[in-house]
């Protein structure tokens, strides 16, 4: 299995988030981007002049605006700097962090600012996604996150009762976490006592995917500053090391190419590849927190098994036993995850940012107790694009 060779270490030294809301009428796109950039630089104790390069992105067409990066440059602090635009659908935010890691680790730049944004309220997301596909051609069927397939698969394997109960359990757990995160967009105050009622009364979207299971539509931006080891020592915040990352993409849906034989998921492939080359045999034991891109409660549930390389119903048992709770063995999405907050082009970066905050120990009320040394963050985008990023508190591994 191929290894990635870093010329030098790279670390996250600054994190900036905006307020997340369904409507940000108070800011235009440039001003919203600027809020995140300003917060990230303030967090790092750096000035805009300290930044060598900017990588910036959003999900294409979701504001229905062509090349928004040209306009956003006003808020990015891009004057006189090298700027790249990266857009990989929902994965954009994590692709930006991966790119920043590569740009710094290669030695090309010392300090790179990665900025993801989305103003979902300004455009028409269904219009954007629908235009991806031609159902009668080999531009494959796309649903984005709004798919009933994962619910069908979980129920098919574990039965209606256990499957539905696990999905609503996952959903309520995420809301419990979101309630502790001051930045989370949707905080509903759900309790486990309401599980039976929600399983029956929440509006059906597709099959067993109900409105309550689904991620939000948010406006917001996120920025992280990635710096070389030498530059990181100049920042005021302790560095969070990016140990390794992997991005996996497969351009098909499982029914049309593979018939009814399901191939290995991109989530499992990414985990196998990343953990394999870093010598991690038991991810559940190794990682102290996992910020996972969970587009719906069903997908979050199904992907835990894939990312953590579990078999059978191990992931359901862990969920049922509270192992993924904030005080569990491996807390999942202390932030409340994507179901609570989803400014898409920033969403996958939020996973990395929140995981890094957990390592720094300054996440606030949703901080995992006992100290976080090893954190995992994932990204997801259309046509099963998966990113997986490993963060470390200490520089104590051997560089591949």
């Amino acid at each position: 299995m191929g290894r990635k060779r870093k010329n030098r270490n790279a670390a996250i030294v600054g994190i900036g988030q905006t307020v997340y809301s369904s409507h940000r009428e108070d800011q235009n796109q440039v001003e919203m981007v600027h809020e995140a950039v300003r917060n990230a630089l303030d967090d790092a104790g750096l000035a805009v002049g300290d930044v060598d390069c900017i990588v910036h992105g959003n999900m294409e067409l979701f504001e229905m605006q062509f090349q928004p990066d040209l306009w956003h440059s006003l808020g990015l602090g891009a004057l006189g700097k090298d700027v790249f635009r990266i857009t990989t659908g929902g994965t954009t935010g994590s692709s930006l962090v991966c790119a920043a890691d590569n740009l710094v680790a290669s030695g090309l730049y010392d300090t790179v600012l990665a900025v993801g944004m989305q103003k979902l309220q300004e455009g028409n997301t269904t219009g954007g996604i629908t235009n991806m596909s031609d159902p009668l051609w080999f531009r494959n069927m796309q649903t984005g996150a709004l798919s009933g397939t994962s619910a069908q698969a979980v129920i098919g394997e574990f039965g209606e009762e256990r499957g539905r109960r696990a999905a609503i359990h996952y959903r309520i757990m995420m809301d419990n976490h979101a309630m502790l995160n001051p930045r989370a967009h949707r905080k509903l105050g759900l309790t486990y006592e309401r599980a039976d009622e929600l399983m029956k009364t929440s509006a059906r979207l597709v099959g067993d995917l109900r409105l309550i299971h689904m991620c939000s539509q948010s406006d917001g931006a996120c920025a992280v500053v990635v710096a070389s080891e030498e530059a990181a020592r100049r920042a005021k915040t302790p560095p969070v090391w990016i140990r390794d990352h992997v991005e996996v993409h497969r351009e098909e849906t499982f029914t049309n190419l593979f018939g009814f034989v399901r191939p290995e998921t991109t989530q499992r492939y990414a985990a196998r590849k990343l953990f394999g080359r870093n010598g991690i045999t038991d991810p559940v034991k190794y990682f102290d927190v996992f910020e996972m891109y969970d587009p719906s409660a069903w997908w979050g549930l199904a992907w835990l098994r894939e990312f953590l390389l579990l078999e059978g119903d191990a992931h359901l048992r862990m969920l049922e036993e509270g192992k993924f709770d904030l005080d569990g063995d491996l807390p999942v999405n202390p932030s409340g995850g994507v179901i609570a907050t989803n400014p898409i082009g920033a969403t996958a970066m939020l996973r990395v940012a929140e995981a890094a905050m957990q390592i720094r120990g300054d996440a606030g009320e949703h901080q995992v107790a006992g100290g976080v040394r090893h954190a995992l963050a994932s990204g997801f985008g259309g046509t099963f694009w998966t990113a997986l990023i490993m963060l470390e508190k200490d520089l104590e591994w051997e560089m591949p």
Partner: protein
Amino acid sequence: MDGGADKEHCFVVEARMALPNEYFAGRTGSRFLTALRDEKRILGVRCPSCGMTFVPPREYCERCWSKIAENWVELEKEGEIVAHTVVRYEDRHLPKKPPYILALIQLKGADTPFPHIVEGVDPAYVFPGMAVRAVFAKVPVNTLMGIDHFEPL
């Protein structure tokens, strides 16, 4: 390999992409539009450290990163044409029925020109440096079309 010269039996599949959207002007942009609509005043913001005056206004100076959103200045309704072109094609998204003159206009006191429409002059006689003044819309408009057009002085 025929270099793409043979186009026989090659279909073009028709597609129709719709781009419905809305646009948040933000607090700073909203103040500018409201002043234009309700008071027939053109507002800009001045950067105290660079001395640049931006029209339309913006929250931060992209050069020195000073916050300038509250540094309002009122501009004159007159300025001059910096550059211009003539829009001759018709499309649904265009603000006026073509042909019309689209010009970059720099108001007196502003450092940034902005695009608007010039009427009341034959395109052949428009030149850089030509003095123009704003003609406001007769009915309230919530966009930059609160200025209906510019006309020669």
